[in-house]
């Protein structure tokens, strides 16, 4: 493998790891809210979270590009904060990926929270656990399979994205050129051997991830 290939693999893993961690932090409260709320907004929020499932990545990428651009709201904010503009940077890629992979993390966690039901939390309350305490000591441990599924799916989905990376990240070696883009480059340049290495690696990786998911998490088999 060429050094650019290795750099792409490394960047991809870094991106997926950062995005997965952020998604668990952002997705958990959303999943909790969606699982427990009786608000009429539940449908709206649920639909917005699920949008990336059906939208072409280019559509999401396009709007994020506009929003993060010099005249977009995110762009103005980042400029005002002195961060500069996010498109074509690693942080920009991270933010776009968080949006794009959100449903893959929120939905398994939400399902797991819903499956717990009301009773264990009521029991915890009658045993002196505050709602915050009960969330950490009861809800999270009981939803562990959902967290595992969400993390694996979020990670794998981020590794596999292409369209949104091209829209937001462009193709800057070492900064935004991830494996999927690198494969595209190799194919464009008719470098099929290199493309095979990376593409084959992706197939193997994806298979192993799904194998892990289905083997260690039997409940997920029904959900998927």
């Amino acid at each position: 493998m060429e050094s650019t290939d290795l750099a792409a693999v490394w960047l991809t893993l870094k991106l997926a790891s950062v995005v997965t961690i952020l998604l668990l932090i952002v997705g958990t409260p959303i999943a909790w809210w969606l699982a427990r709320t009786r608000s009429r907004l539940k449908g709206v929020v649920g639909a917005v979270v699920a949008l990336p499932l059906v939208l072409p990545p280019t559509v999401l990428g396009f709007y994020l590009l506009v929003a993060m651009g010099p005249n977009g709201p995110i762009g103005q904010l980042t400029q005002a904060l002195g961060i500069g503009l996010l498109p074509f940077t690693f942080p920009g890629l991270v933010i776009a990926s968080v949006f794009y992979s959100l449903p893959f993390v929120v939905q398994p966690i939400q399902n797991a929270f819903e499956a717990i039901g009301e009773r264990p939390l009521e029991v915890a309350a009658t045993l002196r656990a505050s709602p915050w305490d009960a969330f950490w000591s009861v809800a999270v441990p009981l939803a562990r399979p959902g967290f595992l599924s969400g993390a694996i799916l979020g990670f794998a989905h981020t590794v596999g994205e292409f369209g949104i990376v091209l829209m937001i990240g462009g193709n800057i070696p070492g900064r935004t050129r991830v494996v999927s883009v690198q494969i595209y480059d190799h194919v464009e340049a008719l470098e099929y051997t290199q493309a095979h290495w990376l593409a084959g690696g992706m197939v193997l990786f994806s298979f192993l991830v799904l194998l892990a998911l289905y083997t260690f998490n039997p409940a997920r088999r029904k959900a998927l």
Partner: protein
Amino acid sequence: MSLEIQARFRVDRSAFTLDVDLILPGRGVTALFGHSGSGKTTVLRAMAGLERAAAGYFALGSEVWQDESRGRFVPPHQRALGVVFQEASLFPHLSVRGNMEFGQKRTSTAARRFSLPEIAELLGIAHLLDRAPGQLSGGERQRVAIARALLAAPQILLMDEPLAALDLKRKLEILPYLERLHGELSIPIIYVSHAPDEVARLADHLVLLDQGKVVASGPLNAVLSRIDLPATFADDAGVVIEAAIAAHEADDLTRLEFTGGRILVSQRHEPVGTRLRCRIHARDVSLALAPPVQTSILNSVAATVAELAPTNTPGHVLVKLDAAGTPLLARITRRSAEKLAIRPGLALHTQIKAVALLA
């Protein structure tokens, strides 16, 4: 000092209205008895703070946990109470010990009244501490749930049909432990049930609920011996007698004595002096004007008629009797009542066909 429990709740739902105003003793077991839909579980949940009645007041002694007129509502986790639900609801991610420590860890050391080994011993689960909840039988799980609730140092224990999900064998296995709690704990227990036998066996105070309203509330026997209750409760009419073993007789019978008389039952193995509860159904009591002779029925107690009331069994009446202070109920046909000219004040003899011993 005996605390008093005050509970007033009003809940309005589309198909159901609950409106109760209760003053309950701060000791012993109070049973909330009623059919499904009577609101007994809602009352319990409101007491626990798991449901907030729009108009509600709940106080244990001087401790006011809800007073909506002053906007006061203490959330459940800040109330010193224990709840045992119908399903044990043990935390599956914790061992038996972990479950028991859950509430204990969240209780200040000063408030703790029992140690974990003591409670484990009391409920007979000391050998199960390292098991996972999934490895326990239904009865064992429920005992762990009770232990878990007690270790959080509650000032009141709320039990929502704790035996309803168990089969008869498990029920019989767990009832003695509940009786031990009754005997050894100083805290009041509110016990929701729709099983008359459990109530007769455990309760000291009885609240009858029907369609969200309190039909009767009072000491167990005072309520059980009332004959003016709605027909729904009259089917199973009967009284509970506290008796003590007086003697073991040679022909495999045991003699019990209670205020008002003595009865013979099949041989018991407890020592003389042991107190037992027994239930006498109205349908098992017949009446005679003269002391019965030449009858196979052994038990006869002299009593005076207190009052009569119709029942919902056609052609039958319910007779309330007074046996030297102990109330008894008899269900006889209206024809017999007329033939014997049964009226309040009449002294007669009861014949008791069956006595159900409750322990």
